[in-house]
């Protein structure tokens, strides 16, 4: 899934509500629109914001290599969180925005965070020509297939170009992605076929990189069940050109879902239980024990691989902390990907 963290909620909700699920994602959402299976996603309109839903994100991860073959990871995320289900102008606008950016190298992890109010132009998303921004961070282009991506922090920056080489992928049932046995769901689609080239600015100097990026789009109003405390999410790109998105929602009983994407972009949704992921280790980071090596299996497609973090210390020390970083895939299939883990409290 990419029920990626709408950590902003933690900032926004009263403390008693935060007790519900990770980052408040399991809270009630009266007045907000709810995802429905019969909604047909339309583009480019759905690339833009959906202010009548409580939470939404534009979530891009990339696996890259430098001129010397060194692997790198990159993250660019824009979260939207609504205090009330409408948009507007000025400070009163109940839309809040949060940006997370990171670069991961084999031995370092750089993180930055931005927060902004909607309604004054400091952050927002326009569908066409596509533009998503917060402060000086942008993801924008003439259309959704050709994008420029920038972000910066006190000790790093990047500026890369993205070109889509395949179609959009709708998860679940036409983009309606169920998140629990009780029926919590979100609207969820991806563009996993970006070619990437550009420059990373690191304390040691600029590095020219090329690689592949995966963009997730998701919005909802209550994507988690109250008992779901966190998730482990995988986006894997195999050397065969095939891709796998899968997640485990950890609750009283685990809930899994996955999407198999063939090299041409044809997607197949897989039901609860088809996808399995088991931790192989525990790594101590930021005072927590986090699994950074996994055995991931999808027997339907003969997948049985080991997923290993490029840098086990890829901890996002942001308003709501979580683990997010590039991984290497070995076993029945080989390749690269991204891993996100939330809800590992100390």
């Amino acid at each position, binding site marked *: 899934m990419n029920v990626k963290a709408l950590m902003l909620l933690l900032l*926004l909700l009263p403390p008693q509500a935060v007790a519900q699920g990770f980052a408040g994602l399991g809270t009630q959402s009266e007045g907000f629109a709810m995802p429905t299976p019969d909604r047909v996603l339309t583009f480019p309109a759905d690339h833009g914001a959906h202010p009548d839903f409580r939470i939404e994100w534009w979530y891009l991860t990339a696996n890259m290599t430098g001129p010397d073959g060194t692997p790198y990871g990159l993250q660019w995320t824009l979260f939207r969180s609504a205090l009330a289900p409408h948009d507007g102008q000025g*400070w009163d606008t109940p839309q809040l925005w949060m940006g997370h950016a990171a670069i991961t190298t084999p031995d370092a992890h750089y993180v930055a965070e931005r927060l*902004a109010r909607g309604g004054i132009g400091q952050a927002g998303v326009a569908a066409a020509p596509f533009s998503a921004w917060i402060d*000086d961070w942008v993801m924008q282009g003439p259309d959704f297939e050709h994008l420029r991506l920038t972000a*910066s922090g*006190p000790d790093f920056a990047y500026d890369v170009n993205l070109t889509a080489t395949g179609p959009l992928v709708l998860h679940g049932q036409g983009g309606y992605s169920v998140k629990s046995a009780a029926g919590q769901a979100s609207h969820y689609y991806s563009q996993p076929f970006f070619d990437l080239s550009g420059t990373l600015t690191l304390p040691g100097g600029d590095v020219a990189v090329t690689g592949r990026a995966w963009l997730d789009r998701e919005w909802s109003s209550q994507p988690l069940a109250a008992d779901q405390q966190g998730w482990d999410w995988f986006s894997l790109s195999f050397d065969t050109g095939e891709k796998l998105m899968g997640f485990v929602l950890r609750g009283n009983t685990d809930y899994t879902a996955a999407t198999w994407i063939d090299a041409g972009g044809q997607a197949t949704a897989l039901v609860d239980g088809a996808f399995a992921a088991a931790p192989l280790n525990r790594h101590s980071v930021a005072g927590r024990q986090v699994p950074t090596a996994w055995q991931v299996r999808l027997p339907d497609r003969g997948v049985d691989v080991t997923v290993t973090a490029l840098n086990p210390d890829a901890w996002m020390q942001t308003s709501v902390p979580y683990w997010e970083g590039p991984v290497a895939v070995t076993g029945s299939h080989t390749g690269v990907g991204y891993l996100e883990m939330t809800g590992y409290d100390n």
Partner: protein
Amino acid sequence: MTRVILSALASHWRRNPLQLITLLAGLALATALWSGVQAINAEARSSYDAAAATLGEGQFAQITARDGQPISQQRYVALRRAGWAVSPVIEGRLNGVRIVGLEPLTAPGGLGPVGAGGGADIGAFLSGAGQIFAREDTLARLTGTGAQGVVAQDAAPNTAVTDIGLAQRLLARPDQIDRLIVAPDQPLTRRPLAEVAPDLIQSAAAEGGDVARLTDSFHLNLTAFGLLSFAVGLFIVHGAIGLAFEQRRPMVRTLRALGAPLGRLIALMAVELAVLGLIAGGLGVGLGYLIAAALLPDVAATLRGLYGADVSGQLALRPVWWISGLAIALGGTAVAASGALWSLARMPLLSGVQTRAWAMARNSKVGAAASVVLLVLSAALAVWGQGLLAGFVMLGALLIGGALALPPLLSLVLTLAEARARGPVSQWFWADTRQQVPGLSLALMALLLAMAANVGVSTMVSSFRLTFTGFLDQRLASELYVSAEDATQAAAILAIAQDQADAVLPLLSADRQVAGLPAQVYGARDHATYRVNWQFLRAVPGVWDSLARGEGVLINEQMYRRAGLDLGSVVAVGPGASLAVLGIYGDYGNPIGQVIVTENVFRSLFPDITALRFGLRTVPDRVAALRTRLQEGAGVPDGAMIDQAAIKALSLSVFERTFTVTTALNVLTLAVAGFAILMSLLTLAAMRLPQLAPVWALGLTRTRLALLDLLRAVVLAALTGALALPLGLALAWALLAVVNVEAFGWRLPMYLFPIDYLRLGGLALLAATLAALWPAWRLSRTPPAHLLGVFRHER
């Protein structure tokens, strides 16, 4: 054994409750005076600290508009989108309350109350009716905003913090921002400020609040008072403890003769004193709290009026006062008691009971010598000393030296009087008075210090007032001051003023570094207003003509002292413009340097700066009409016009409040000194019986003796007062010419106020008379049998 000794020690207090009360009251009063003044200072300072902490702005660099005007919200967004991690702040007044609007999502950590927990609900803060954080009394003044009030007791007084959106609405200033807070960590790829917003400037994080710096001079007054009252208090404590020991010396001797070990006795007396010190200290802190609570509203009003600094009028009982007050009481007790205990330890077991008075007499030579040394040290520091510390040491040496000089000087005067006395009674009177000096010397020293402190501080405050009002006359020479919002309005104002006012004086200013110091450069039009009103500390002949010809600059005293610029020194005021110093003027209360150039020079140096503020000359009767015209014709709001008369009236009312505080403290210190005299007289009364009995036997009635005693107190107080005057003036001089210069870089001229001194002298005599009244009355009622007893047991 311990219990037996303790019961004997305690029995003394039981049989002589008056002595116990005087000891406790003396200690308590000294503590009260000290802790009261400290409490006022601490409260004011904590208010500044709260102001600083409420916003925490001082720790961050800031961006403001070059012209001091508001910044538009679009510029804020443009800066954010150029990579600047800045956060907007708007500030204004609503119902007299300072409203500060913040943006919590971008505010750097440590700024504002939100996110700090404790009732902060960011959802409610940002949306709906909003929230306002302030103290309870501040919230009470902000009714009708519709927002939810959240009590934040650690907020600065009279300050309300809220979301910037709500603040803009409350202040009716949509889309406006006053300044931007710059986060300490900035992204790598931000574009230079000059490129993004050339009209904005960044200033470094402040080292201390401006308000705190300004109000320092007022606090210095209070601190000086605190120091003086502490000195007075220390003398009183010393006297009280010394007397308490004096009264029990015979008992201690007897106890030792009966076999009580000396070490045990001294230890027990030390413990007993510590307990008494704690009790008296506790009482004193409570009393000091009452004093502070009574005075604080006036202090708060003074600070608000003088400096615009908000100080809560309510006093919070802080643990630090309890601790410091008790520490003072205990420390003072310890200092005073160590001498007394030392002399007890060395007291021969057998020799007759030596009275303290005799011991004092023996020590008077040492005292005189110490006094000379201290006064010489003080004078040397005045001439050669450098720095604030030296200033305070000088002050201390002057005070203690002056106090120690009192007993020998009094003895000298009384000896002279005795030599000139003719009648037997007057001869006896002078001789007996001289004999009283050692016993009364501590109390008289306290009186001396109290009076000197009063003379010194009231001279300082009055000089400050005279100087400041004179300074206002000079600086506020124009009848009306008008500020324009922009160049268009400025033009409209000019059009009206040129027609309606007698003269228009544009006020041009630019902030820049001059001679390495932060300074303001002013452009002054060549006009009679300046020539008539402006006064110089020093100037070259024909200064205004030279200035008008663009030959030089005027600088304020701060530049003169700090940058070492004298007449004729060359100052770089702008690119390629270095000019000679033509004159130096006093600029009181201004923390930074100031340079004045003539208007033409200013306009060529800073062609971009247009005048937005103007001084308008007109006859006073026409000010109201002019205001109306400007309001109607140029749309100048009322708040943008300042009436010279109104400012002066406000300033004077502020000074009146300062005087209320000063006078109250004056009366208090005198009361304490009077109490010290009362205590000493009561103690001496018993010892004096053998001296009075023979005089009584020889034919003076008890009433006559009592009247003579009263007269004696008045004479001693008057003599002490005569010595206090020069000491007080020296003190005032030290405060104005040494401490003030070291602390703030400007010197206050000293003026003399003979009427005030006379009034003070009258008060001191009154205090001494009141103090002597009861002992005299008691003497007049002494049963003859008591007096006869003197002859019965020879002592």
